[in-house]
């Protein structure tokens, strides 16, 4: 039987497992990216064999840009239904929007949230509270940009406890302080370690799987910010069992996405 590594070495689409990319973007960045469209992402997915990606806009600046960016993502989820799912990116408005308004925005067609702290707002800021509460009620994933900072880990621990029905995905695991990523991944049941990282050290993926468990590591590529194929390669090449590779590349993401429910549906609190 052809292994996933062999498929990658030959440049053939990954088959036999469902591959889900939990971290992608559409839109321009400050540096040159040849293709920043949703269509460009779907073209690459056809080559790599990635079945689904969850995308958000490239980092917006103002409230108006956030609105436009979320609208573009929603349009992409309609145009590429089933291939592209969307994260809603909340603007840290002051005063905060109501819980009902946050829910209404998410229910427009998004499956989760994406938060970034480069705007100077901590993830525990009250502006985000209604969105996190609404996402928690829907058992959604929230993709957090992270860079291994002590203050970030404090916030993630607080949010993990406060919102037990969220799936917290910590993007860029291994960017700094790998040990603390591993600790929070082990200790917080609803925290997952997401792998998008341009400069991935050799052996990182296998180490995370070994120390945290294959069920707590999820794959994301950060396409179109960087190359999806490049990011896929680090999991294909990691020295670990094939079943763990399948879990990291899609099995865990499928479980996370399948937990998402409409706000009104009954659910069991903390059901992981």
């Amino acid at each position: 039987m052809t292994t996933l590594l062999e498929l990658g070495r030959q440049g053939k689409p990954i088959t036999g497992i469902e591959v889900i990319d939990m971290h992608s973007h559409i839109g321009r960045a400050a540096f040159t990216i040849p293709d920043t469209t949703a269509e460009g992402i779907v073209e690459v997915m056809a080559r790599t064999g990635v079945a689904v990606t969850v995308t958000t806009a490239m980092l917006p600046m103002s409230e108006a840009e956030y609105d436009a960016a979320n609208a573009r993502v929603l349009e992409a989820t309609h145009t590429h239904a089933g291939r592209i799912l969307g994260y809603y990116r909340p603007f840290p408005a002051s005063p905060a929007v109501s819980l009902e308004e946050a829910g209404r925005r998410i229910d427009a067609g998004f499956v989760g949230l994406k938060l970034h702290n480069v705007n100077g707002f901590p993830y525990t800021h009250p502006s985000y509270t209604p969105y996190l509460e609404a996402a928690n009620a829907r058992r959604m994933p929230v993709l957090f940009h992270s860079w291994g900072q002590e203050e970030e880990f404090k916030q993630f621990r607080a949010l993990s406890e406060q919102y037990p029905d969220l799936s917290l995905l910590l993007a860029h695991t291994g960017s700094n302080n790998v040990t603390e990523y591993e600790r929070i991944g082990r200790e917080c049941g609803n925290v997952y370690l997401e792998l998008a990282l341009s400069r991935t050290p050799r052996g990182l993926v296998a180490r995370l799987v070994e120390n945290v468990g294959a069920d707590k590591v999820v794959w994301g590529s950060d396409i179109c910010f960087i190359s999806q194929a490049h990011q896929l390669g680090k999991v294909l090449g990691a020295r670990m069992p094939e079943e763990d590779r399948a879990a990291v590349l899609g099995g865990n993401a499928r479980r996370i996405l399948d937990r998402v429910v409409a706000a009104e549906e009954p659910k069991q609190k903390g059901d992981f």
Partner: protein
Amino acid sequence: MMSTRLFDVQAGFGGVASGASAGVSADDLSEEMARLDIARALVRTCPDELLKDVFSANAALYEACRAHPDMVPCPIVIPDTGYDAPSVWDQVSLAIAQGAGAVALRPEQDCWSLADWASVSLFEVLEERRMPTYCDARSLTLDQVGHLAERYPGVPLMLAGVAYREDRTMLPLLATFHNVYLSIGSNYTVHKGIQQFVEKVGAGRLLFGTGFPDAEPMMAVALLMYADIPEDARQHIGSDNFERLLGGIRR
């Protein structure tokens, strides 16, 4: 389907990082090459942050490559302007005699200047021997590489370690200077970047590299193998381009 033949131009072993007691060995690299079906590798002493004695490191590199015929040494050369080193001609001649496929430059680490009056004797020899010259982006800026490319058009300059945010500069650099080549190894991870280079500059100017031992080498393999480019372009990048440079060395 025949698999694309790969010649990794951005690999190494034998160095020890700060805070570590040991590094990876040539055998470690050899095992990884076999696992990923990489046929040959141009190898340096890596990591090299603590490497002070270039001649001792080069000797160890030559010895390791003699035991691993699939590895081609890329020793470090320095100007002979301090009267403390063999002549550049002798350094390069020794490298060629030992089977070197390129030489590496580390101006800042090895305490020399790229100014013409301090380095012209070095580059004149490299140009005369048509010696591929490995330029790590940590050691030389893109501006400096552009200057060298213009000043010494006969020196093939292999740029490695370039980050994914540099294509606004890399594209005109390669388009302007036909003696500049780019390794796609860590940390070049541009979405559709290889495709764009092939379209705008041509497939002849990219080189396959991984970034071993720092980077997960399968990342660069996947980057190349999944690129939406013609198969002949993939093979040029995979190994043909560097083998052509090897064939151009005046031995």
